[in-house]
């Protein structure tokens, strides 16, 4: 689960990290009033769950409240790579002497959280990692002890910080790490972390994402969810235990298992089609789940044909076929459906589908080819 920059900043500020505190506006007039209140140069920043806002024109500086109003009117409603801007964060301008990157992520190969820092602040850490990995300083946490202060200090010295900045840096790094662990984050990032002209350290931009599997123990986080940022169909799917991700193509996919669902999308593409979605209906592919999947997939107007790919393992193919027939009785599907059914009792299952007027195939290649033809 992702949150906005202003929400991440509030979380970090509440944990004692110095943050350049701003206010959120949803109209140009609000932005103007906030700018007047600050009474100085402000930055107007689009609040969307996607990176690269600056390059897309989603961040503007304004010297006067009138300029702030104008900037906000340009940014609000803007589309940044498929995300509509509904809110802007107005922050007071600060005097930046130096910029750093500071983040905590899971180091997957080593299976521990890692603190990462770089003197290339304001730049995407991925860009730094790709172009000059030696500039990234890392401190891996201990699985039980977490990140100790000495490790944060080591990173501070390695960044070339002066001795008077070491303690503030250590405090910020340690609090960022604690926020990551205690809130089950998958990312906690300050970029840039700045030193102001007067020598103070401050978070200028914050970003956090959280582990969906751990939301049950952080009930407060649900309140931070911005429904406008999430695809309504994806949310509804999650409520039914279905993983659904909307894509841009016209072939709806309903598959049991995440890996097979990805392989099915790839097969559609390989045969010249474009998948409309990723959808993992779950192991059993019951009538209820398949009916819900039909509703989810057909809610996408681009869908011109549906491919159902079920590998009947422990759930028998004839049971899966009955489920598909029952689901079709409940949901009115107007586009052609191609089924691939394999595994236990798959032949009986295919016969049952044929009775219901559905074409069922035994292999994924055949089915993918047919569905691409049906959608053309």
């Amino acid at each position, binding site marked *: 689960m992702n949150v906005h920059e202003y929400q991440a900043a509030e979380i970090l500020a509440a944990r004692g990290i110095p943050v350049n505190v701003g206010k959120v506006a949803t109209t140009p007039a609000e932005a103007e009033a906030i700018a007047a209140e600050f009474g100085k140069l402000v930055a107007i920043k689009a609040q969307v769950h*996607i990176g690269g806002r600056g390059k897309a024109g989603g961040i503007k500086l304004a010297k006067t409240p009138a300029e702030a109003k104008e900037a906000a009117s340009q940014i609000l409603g803007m589309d940044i790579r498929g995300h509509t801007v509904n809110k802007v964060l107005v922050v007071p301008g600060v005097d930046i002497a130096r910029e750093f990157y500071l983040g905590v992520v*899971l180091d*997957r*190969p080593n*299976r*521990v*959280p890692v603190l990462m820092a770089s003197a290339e602040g304001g730049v*995407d*850490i*991925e860009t730094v*990692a*790709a172009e000059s990995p030696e500039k990234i300083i890392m401190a891996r946490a201990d*699985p*039980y002890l977490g990140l100790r202060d000495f490790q944060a200090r080591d990173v501070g010295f390695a960044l070339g910080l002066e001795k008077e900045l070491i303690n503030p840096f250590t405090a910020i790094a340690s609090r960022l790490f604690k926020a990551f*662990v205690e809130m*089950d984050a*998958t990312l906690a990032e300050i970029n840039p972390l700045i030193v102001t002209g007067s020598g103070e350290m401050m978070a200028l931009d914050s970003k956090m994402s959280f*582990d*969906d*599997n*751990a939301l*049950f*123990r952080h009930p407060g986080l649900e309140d931070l969810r911005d429904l406008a940022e999430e695809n309504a169909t994806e949310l509804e799917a999650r409520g039914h235990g279905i*993983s659904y*991700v909307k*894509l841009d193509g016209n072939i709806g996919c309903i*598959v*049991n*298992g*995440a*890996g*097979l*669902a*990805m*392989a099915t*999308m*790839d*097969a*559609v*593409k*390989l045969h010249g089609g474009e*998948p409309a979605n*990723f959808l*993992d209906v779950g*192991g059993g592919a019951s009538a209820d789940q398949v009916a819900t999947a039909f509703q989810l997939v057909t809610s996408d107007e681009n869908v011109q044909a549906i491919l159902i790919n079920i*590998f009947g*393992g*422990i759930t028998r193919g004839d049971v899966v076929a009955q489920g598909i027939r029952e689901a079709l009785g409940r949901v009115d599907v107007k586009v052609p459906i191609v089924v691939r059914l*394999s*595994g*236990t009792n798959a032949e009986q299952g295919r016969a049952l589908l044929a009775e219901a007027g559905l074409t069922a195939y035994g*292999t*994924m*290649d055949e089915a993918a080819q047919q569905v691409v033809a049906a959608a053309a």
Partner: protein
Amino acid sequence: MSILVNSDTRLLVQGITGKEGSFHTTQMVEYGTNVVGGVTPGGAGKSVAGAPVFNTVHQAVEATGANVSIIFVPARFAPDAIYEAVDAGIPFVICITEGIPILDMVPVYDYVKQKGARLLGPNCPGVITPGEAKVGIMPGFIHEPGSIGLVSRSGTLTYEVVDALTRAGLGQSTAVGIGGDPVIGTSFVDALELFQADDKTSAIVMIGEIGGTDEETAAAYIKEHVTKPVVGFIAGQTAPPGKRMGHAGAIISGGTGTAAEKIRTMTEAGVSMANKPSDVPGLVKAAIA
């Protein structure tokens, strides 16, 4: 030979009286797996598919000599179940449970390693040595005994490939599902090492997916240490960046974890890469010819 499980496996099922646990215990017993017992706190005295139920893993191990444990307990209690199994001296633990918070697995992984045990999963289908022991939720009947070792991050996609291999007359030595989470006990490299050392395995099939860099690490390992032929497939070539594709680990983030990069690295390591699952048997046949 074969790897991880065989006819000497004495299996314990943690969470045996639950819906999933009891269903799959029956399936495993029907396949011929030697299920010696199960654990459900407070369930002592019951039995499931002929296997006696104990209150604690310690008691179960003492009474049955179990040497492998499989876990079906809910996500909130699964880390504790892993600790309990390892603490009772079980050397190999398989965790089927999905949805465990990522950071809960960090100390679990380390604890298992410190105790010299091995963990498979979580969020995995388990492991099967056809004809000897099925320790997991995979459909047993699609497998045939043979000499192809298979390791995969996925569930149903693995069944797809196993089915294709079996239909092509290529039986399997062992098929291992390592799971799709960011923190897992057994990695591709661990499984490759076991297959390389296994006399019964003549070739290895490795099925990866987008997210993380485990496939790249495996490719480096293959280049250096694996002399047996390896055939690979990567799912998620059409997956967009920044979106989690079902598995918690299947996400392309910051330009890393893409299928293209994994395919390139594996090809460079000498792995024959299949464009689609149905191409795997042909490539295996060519590799062992």
